[in-house]
């Protein structure tokens, strides 16, 4: 119970903090300052944003499907928070060490697709619907590669449990033998959180704001927080699966190692946003199915072959 509270508290403070971090980092890479007025280093801008979102009118368009419109933003936050259940932060600090941890993570991230689809559909707006359809196609396709790219790690460690996978990396982090798996997983992860450069469902230069065009106030805030939680989730899962989780030299406690590595990946997410342009929708699908998919399959087959060859 204490762990649940701690994890929930940490995540819900990190998620808005990331908004500040992202704005500062983007500014840094674009030779600007970013928010630097409110409070030390502009940290209070997070508070200002939150207050603003809370006090905005909670508007449901009259043409929207009210029931679905309301539950869609809740789904994204719930599914991402549920995924954190299986992430081991340090030895013993995990909400629940399921023996099908990876599958649970995949299942929850696949449920996250519903928030986009339902939100876009319920808005009853053509731009939202376009965003939702793009989002659905993108998320379903990239889920496939995400699952397949993880299987190399599962083959090497022989377990679906994230705890066991971290323990199996004592000798060597899986990023070395599973480098292609790591690349695929990370690309699929960026697509799965529909972050730039793969923000096709939002694509504000084409679709207003995509699936959440009609959302305002705290409902939009939930989508926003869900996106940042998604970044944290993908970063921490990447760290757990490929970068040895909490493992590291002794001079820092395990949790610190985990947090450090995770923040590295979060910053990489922001760097991706700062530097890469958005591909066209069909280019994205083509890249997924014609390049990533065969490569992940090859990676999986190669890993299995080498493992079998080593065994005999």
């Amino acid at each position, binding site marked *: 119970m204490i762990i649940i509270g701690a994890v929930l508290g940490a995540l819900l403070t990190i998620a808005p903090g990331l908004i500040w971090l992202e704005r500062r980092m983007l500014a840094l890479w674009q030779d600007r300052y970013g928010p630097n007025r409110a409070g030390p280093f502009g940290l209070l801008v997070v508070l200002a944003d939150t207050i603003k979102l809370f006090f905005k009118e909670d508007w449901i368009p009259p043409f929207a499907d009210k029931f679905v419109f309301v539950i869609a933003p809740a789904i994204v936050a719930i599914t991402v928070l549920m995924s954190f259940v299986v992430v081991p932060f340090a030895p013993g600090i995990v909400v629940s060490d399921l023996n099908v941890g990876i599958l649970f993570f*995949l*299942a929850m991230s696949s449920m996250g697709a519903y928030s986009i689809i339902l939100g876009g559909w319920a808005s009853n707006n053509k731009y939202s619907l376009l965003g939702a359809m793009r989002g659905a196609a993108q998320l379903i396709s990239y889920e496939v590669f995400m699952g397949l790219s993880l299987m190399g790690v599962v083959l090497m460690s022989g377990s679906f449990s994230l705890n066991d996978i971290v323990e199996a990396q004592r000798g060597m982090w899986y990023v070395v033998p599973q480098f292609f798996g790591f690349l695929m997983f990370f690309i699929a992860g960026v697509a799965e959180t529909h972050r730039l450069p793969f923000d096709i469902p939002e694509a504000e230069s084409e679709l207003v704001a995509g699936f959440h065009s009609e959302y305002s106030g705290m409902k939009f805030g939930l989508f926003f927080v869900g996106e940042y939680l998604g970044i944290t989730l993908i970063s921490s899962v990447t760290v757990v699966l490929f970068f040895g989780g909490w493992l590291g030299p002794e001079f820092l406690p395990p949790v610190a190692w985990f947090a450090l590595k995770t923040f590295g990946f979060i910053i990489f997410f922001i760097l991706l946003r700062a530097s890469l342009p958005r591909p066209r929708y069909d280019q994205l699908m083509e890249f997924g199915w014609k390049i990533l998919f065969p490569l992940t399959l090859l990676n999986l087959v190669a890993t299995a072959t080498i493992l079998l060859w080593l065994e005999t």
Partner: protein
Amino acid sequence: MHLTFYVASAIAVLSTIMVITRYNLIHALLYLVVSFLAISIVFFVLGAPFVAALEIIVYAGAIVVLIIFVIMMLNLKAEAVEQEREWLTRKIFIGPALLSVVLLAELAYMILQSRTTDFNAPMLDAKAVGLSLYGPYVIGVELSGILLMAGIVGAYHLGRQKKKVVHRFLESTEE
């Protein structure tokens, strides 16, 4: 453990009833998702976590999303709901209801006949599922593989783009 099982099964049954009685297709599909989630919890409680996860990933996460995708493309609105309301009359229910009653009777008979399912069945992990899939049920795996292959080839054939060459007098469609 028993309580979760019964609650999950009750939710599964209730939400499936809701699936049938909704006029709005998307709402019906949402209840279908809830039903899948409940069923996956039932699997989990019965000691098959692998199947439970697959149930969510494959059915709730992919197949229903695809169905919703298609429905969104069809752009069904108020008139579709009206039509559905007209179609869904008492008379329609008679046939399926009678058939279901027969099934229910069979189910009740079987439950009464055989001994009840053991809650404390051994945990079925991924390894056991894999062994049984590639052991005794290998023919089933192969057959479904062939079926999927046929599906992929068909989809490729249907979805192949014909490149149209636009020219003043040499207009042709390249295969």
